[in-house]
């Protein structure tokens, strides 16, 4: 890109360019702050923004063993007794 000198601009325009530049950078910053703030408040940033010890703050226990999942509809492998309920896997009659 051919460079265009700022030297032949009057001070009004130079000030205006500087102000517009500052506005654009601050706009980018503000967008970033909102992302960070939202991530923190919605709780999906704890891995990035919280110390490991304060995960309890969110009522989350550090995962130690990924074994069997107790959720009825979960498809994670686990012990036979804890697997998903077969009846729940079938679609309702109206969709068959």
């Amino acid at each position, binding site marked *: 890109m051919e460079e265009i000198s700022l030297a032949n601009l009057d001070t009004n325009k130079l*000030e205006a360019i500087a102000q517009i530049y500052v506005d654009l950078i601050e706009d980018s910053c503000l967008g970033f*702050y909102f992302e960070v703030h939202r991530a*923190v408040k919605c709780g999906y940033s704890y891995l990035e923004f919280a110390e490991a010890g304060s995960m309890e703050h969110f009522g989350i226990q550090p995962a130690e063993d990924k074994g069997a999942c107790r959720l009825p509809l979960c498809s994670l492998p686990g012990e036979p007794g804890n697997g998903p309920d077969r009846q729940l896997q079938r679609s309702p009659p109206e969709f068959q």
Partner: protein
Amino acid sequence: LVVSKMNKDAQMTAAINQKLIETGERECLKELPRAKLTECGWKGQLKSHCKEVIKEKGLEHVTVDDLVAEITPKGRGLVPDSVKKELLQRIRTFLAQHASL
């Protein structure tokens, strides 16, 4: 005299901003730092600073205003020269194309 100059500067800025918005160039200019600053690792650097602020204020109590007050000076200072140069160049080019301003 100072007040008069400030008014002239504000008027000039407003006129240029209006033209930027009318032509759609402002949206393009907004996108430029967003993309470039992510590429060059600026966001990553600011994240580290954000962690410190959040640690200090607490997860539950930190506000956007806290982030703005604490991070903005660092954020401005960390903008790479190449991004500054490109952005200023784009604004200058726009002015050159709209000589009536």
